[in-house]
Every structure is written in structure tokens, then in C-alpha cells.
């Protein structure tokens, strides 16, 4: 403070200079982000306490999308749960279908035909690409790169068009069934999908070229939202977020299911565990999924789509229309549901965001006694206040995006 100012202050009887130089104890500001904020993915609210521009504490308020998934499942037959699982992670619905089907089949000790396993793998990997494209595009969008989002959505829509041809719906696919899958690939679908994948590769490389070495993107994501390897394990991370922190754990390698043990693919692993690594890991996983899909298309042989066991699978329509055995099996299966043997089981698959687990309890009747869901996005979302402690407010949105919280599965 200049001596003249001090003189003036002395004359007017203002505060002493020591008072002026003391740090101001500012009030903390409370900011509500969401629930319906364009930058919040899904419908979630973050109550952020700000110390200047830094986040002093962050409280997450979820449940706006709560539908009572676990409880609803108890009042429907095992087959009728599939439409509910579609709506868990609505960006990659078939992965939830497959995860649930695998858990029930584990309880029934059913061996699914090989072609059905290949089809489940193919649709899961296509949906993994869709999920990662959405995340990468949205991450760019949040940092001001609108173009990237449009390219990503173009790729995702092309893949969804192929899935529409396969399962009859864009979003709520309802594709898997207990004992197999519902439909075979239409004529020329594989060639068309390969062309689509070529187009998606172009778009993905274009997105990567625009973002990865761009200094704006790099500075906004490198070192932001860092989670160390030990923290990631303690917090229960799985999937891309765990691998970005440096732990090479992937259920497709650690406990192979479907045909993953026959496919040649690698797991990308990060080292920093920041938003940039989480971005890079998604790009690499899309490359691996692409590789896997082409192998599946090459190796897949014609064959049965479901087990021919009418305790689990509806008999083919000509038998229902023409024979009494077919009609009886059909009516019993629809009215009483699949008689899953009593017992409990935990089925786990590697969904796009991490480990998707279904804990099933059956009492031997046609309906689930209890279903527990381990939503992949939940541990990451729960860790968000810890990750964000001390970060800038402007970093909240990209970090929130990079953990890929999907309201449908987190809030069940």
C-alpha cells in the first residue's frame, strides 16, 4: 500500500493498514449442479461447496432415476426381467441382457450353443464401442469441442442402426434370452457391420486426432481427477477407470466367459489414473473391441441359437401351432415362467463401465426371490467427492463425464 493512501486513511479515520493486509475470511459458496443441468450426465445433482474457485466439498444427490429395479424384478418371471435390464445402462443395453442371462444360466447350469455365445460377444462388443464413443464425444463436448461429439454420435448411430436390424429396437434391444439369443443375424448383416466398423474406425481416428495431442484438451485433462492405483482398488473401481489407474484387471481376461478366451486381444493399462488416461483407455478399448469383432465374424460358424430344452426356451412356432406337446410346453413356460432351481449365484461380466454383477436368489418358483445388482458405475460415482476434493469447479464436469456415470444403472 502506498504511503499516500495510508496518509489519507489516517486522516479519514479508516482501518489500520494491518487490517487491510489481513487475508479476508471469505464465505463459502454453495452451488447446485443439476439435477437437470446440460453438463450433468443423466439426472444427478451435485451440491458443491466452493472455496473461491476450488471445491471444498461435494455432495452427490442421486435417485432421480430410481425405479426400484431390484424389487420390480421379484414380481415378474425370469424372462420378464430382460426388459428391465435393458434400462440399466441404456447406452449398452445388450451387455446387461447378457450379464443377466449368464447369471441365470449359471444357476440353471445351462451350456449355451456356440453361435449364441458368438452373437452375445459380438453384440456386447458393438455396444462397448457405442458406450465409449458416447463418453469420448461427450468429454470433448464438455471441454468445448462440439465437433467431436457430432462425429462420435454419427458413429454410434450407425452401430445402433445395425443393432436395430439385428434385434428390432435401437435402444431397448431385449436381445438375449435365458438359453441363448432371440434372433439370428439377417442376410448380409455381417458384411454391412464390417463396413460400419470401417466407418467407425475413421471417425474414431478423427476424434483421436482432434483431441489427444491438442494442448487445450491435454491441459484440461492431464493431472485432473487423479486416482492412484491403491485408491482405485480401495474405492472398488472396476473397468476402464481401474485400468486407467494402472491395474491390469479385466474380467474378460481374469475370468473369461462366452468366447473371450478364444479371442486374441490385449488390455490397455494407464499409469496416471487421470481424466486423460481414462480418455486414452477408451480409445484403445475401442480398437481392441474392433479387433475382437472382426475375429468373431471370421470364426463364427452357423449353428443353433438356443438350447433345445423346452423347460427353458419357448418351442419353435410350427410345433406350437401344430402339436399338443408344443402348445403345452409353450403355455407352461409363459404362465409359470422358467423354473430356475433353488439356490443363489453371483454372475459377473465386464460391462462397458466395469464389473456388472447380478446376485440372484431363487426359491425354485418361476420368479426371482431376490435380485441384487452391482452397478458398474456406482463405486466411481461414490468416489467422486474424494477425487474432486480441492479441484477446480470447471474440472468437475469433465471428471464427472470421464467416470461415465449412467443414471439408469447407478440408481437402478
Amino acid at each position: 500500500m502506498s504511503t499516500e493512501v495510508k496518509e489519507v486513511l489516517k486522516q479519514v479515520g479508516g482501518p489500520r493498514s494491518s487490517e487491510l493486509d489481513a487475508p479476508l475470511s471469505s464465505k463459502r459458496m454453495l452451488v447446485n449442479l443439476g439435477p437437470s443441468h446440460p453438463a450433468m450426465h443423466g439426472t444427478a445433482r451435485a451440491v458443491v461447496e466452493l472455496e473461491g474457485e476450488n471445491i471444498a466439498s461435494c455432495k452427490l444427490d442421486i435417485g432421480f432415476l430410481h425405479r426400484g429395479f431390484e424389487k420390480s424384478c421379484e414380481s415378474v418371471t425370469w424372462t420378464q426381467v430382460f426388459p428391465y435390464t435393458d434400462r440399466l445402462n441404456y447406452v449398452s443395453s445388450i451387455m446387461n441382457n447378457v450379464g443377466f442371462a449368464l447369471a441365470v444360466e449359471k444357476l440353471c447350469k445351462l451350456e449355451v450353443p456356440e453361435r449364441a455365445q458368438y452373437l452375445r460377444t459380438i453384440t456386447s462388443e458393438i455396444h462397448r464401442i457405442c458406450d465409449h464413443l458416447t463418453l469420448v464425444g461427450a468429454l470433448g463436448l464438455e471441454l468445448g469441442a462440439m465437433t467431436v461429439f457430432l462425429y462420435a454420435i454419427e458413429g454410434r448411430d450407425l452401430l445402433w442402426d445395425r443393432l436395430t436390424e439385428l434385434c428390432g429396437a435401437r435402444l431397448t434391444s431385449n436381445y438375449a434370452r435365458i438359453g441363448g439369443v432371440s434372433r439370428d443375424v439377417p442376410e448380409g448383416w455381417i458384411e454391412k457391420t464390417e463396413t460400419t466398423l470401417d466407418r467407425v474406425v475413421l471417425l474414431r481416428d478423427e476424434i483421436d486426432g482432434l483431441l489427444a495431442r491438442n494442448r487445450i484438451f491435454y491441459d484440461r485433462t492431464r493431472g485432473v481427477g487423479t486416482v492412484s492405483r491403491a485408491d482405485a482398488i480401495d474405492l472398488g473401481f472396476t473397468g476402464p477407470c481401474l485400468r486407467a489407474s494402472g491395474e491390469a484387471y479385466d474380467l474378460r481376461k481374469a475370468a473369461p466367459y462366452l468366447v473371450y478366451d478364444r479371442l486374441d486381444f490385449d488390455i490397455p493399462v494407464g499409469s496416471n489414473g487421470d481424466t486423460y488416461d481414462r480418455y486414452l483407455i477408451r480409445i484403445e478399448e475401442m480398437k481392441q473391441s474392433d479387433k475382437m469383432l472382426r475375429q468373431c465374424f471370421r470364426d463364427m460358424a452357423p449353428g443353433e441359437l438356443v438350447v433345445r430344452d423346452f423347460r427353458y426356451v419357448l418351442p419353435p412356432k410350427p410345433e406350437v401351432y401344430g402339436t399338443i406337446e408344443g402348445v403345452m410346453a409353450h403355455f407352461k413356460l409363459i404362465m409359470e415362467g422358467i423354473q430356475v432351481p433353488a439356490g443363489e449365484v453371483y454372475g459377473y461380466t465386464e460391462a462397458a463401465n466395469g464389473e456388472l454383477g447380478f446376485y440372484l436368489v431363487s426359491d425354485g418358483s418361476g420368479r426371482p426371490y431376490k435380485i441384487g445388482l452391482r452397478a458398474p458405475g456406482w463405486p466411481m460415482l461414490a468416489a467422486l467427492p474424494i477425487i474432486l476434493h480441492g479441484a477446480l469447479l470447471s474440472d468437475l464436469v469433465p471428471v464427472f463425464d470421464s467416470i461415465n456415470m449412467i443414471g439408469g444403472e447407478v440408481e437402478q
Partner: protein
Amino acid sequence: MAYQLDNRPLDLRERFYFPEVIRGIGTLAGHFLRNLFFSRDANPDILARPRGLGYSDNVTLQYPEEKAPYPPGYRGLHRLVPREDGSPRCVACYMCATACPAQCIYIEAAEVPGDPIEKYPAKFVIDELRCVVCGFCVEACPKDAIRMDTGEHAPPSLERVHQLLDEKALLRGPAVSYLSDPWLRRPAPSIPAEALAAMTASARPYPDASDEYAQTPGFSVKALAAEARERAERAGTP
């Protein structure tokens, strides 16, 4: 095996900011110029639109004017499949209402006058607002009486009540008859003799490959049709 991500720090050129910005603008300008000088292809099949030099990158459809047709097998709006005489194939067995996870189907059964066996749906109402479009009703139908092959989605309406489709609104589309239909195999008093003869003439042995919606989950329509043809040839019936 696991491999490390390529997360090297930015080098001097990348930190210099402008070279990378110019490279990015180059990518975008390529798209921009193509879209500026070449017109949009209106093919609704986006994948079939030519790409590259000399073609627009635009992948949009001008929606209400241009519509992409839904692929065969798309789960669209329900319909009740009619028989050739215009009555529904539905025998009011309640299978679809049982299989529906959203409980959006309401049926009231009635006896066909003058026929000791046949039932028909006096009321068949689907609440399209409750429907989750899972297709279980189609799979559950033992008579191929309900399908979702209309190729259209539920139309918008200003009133909720307009989304309650009753049997009159649902009964439409091409008629279907199978040789295995019970009303063709025995003389059904409710159907006039000449109509019955016409229906028997047009009845098909089994769904052919174009009937995506006559399929059971997990079975290929084509394979089933071929299997049925073989069995019919072996049995010596047409």
C-alpha cells in the same frame, strides 16, 4: 497381455499450440468444404451414402419430409392379425397379457355365437403408453395373432386416451392362415362354407422366411420353414 497407454507428455511442437491448432482446423476444414460445395445425399440408408472427395459428409435426414424405413423385424406398433374373413385370429387365450411385463394388454373373452368351441376377444385393448416394446406378446402368442410388424411407431397424440388402441384399431394388415389352424381342420359353424374353402385354399403350411414376426426367439424362420417343408414332403402332404 496388458500394454501401456501411449501417454507421453506433449513435445515442443505440440506445446507450441499453433501447429496442432492448424492441423485440427485442417481436419475440420476438409469436412466443411466438402459440405459447402457438394450437396447432401438423400439416401435414407446412411451407410450407403458415398463418402470421400467429391461427396458431402452430411449424414442427416430432413425428418418429417424424409424418413428412414424401419428394417424388417423392427418392433413397431402392434396389430391384431386378421383371418381372410376379416375376423381376428386371436382366440382370447390371455397368453400375451400374461407375458407382458408392463401389463398393458386388456382382454375380455367371449364365445363365438353358434360355435361350441371358439372364443374371440370381445375387448382387446393395448395401452401404447404403458407398452415397453419388448415383443414378448408376439413371442407368447400361440396363434400368430398379434404382431409388431407394422413398421411404424406409436403415433403422437394430444390426449392419453388416444393411445388406448382397441380391437378395431388394432385389427389391420395382411391376413394370415395356416393349414394347422383348428378352424380350418374341422368345420367351424361360425364361418360360412365358401369362406372356409377360400381360407383353406390360401392357407400356408408354415411361416415362410418373410414372416419375421412369426418367429420364436432363438429359432431362425428360414431354418424352421425348411424343416417344415422337409417334414411335409416326407409325410407326403402338400
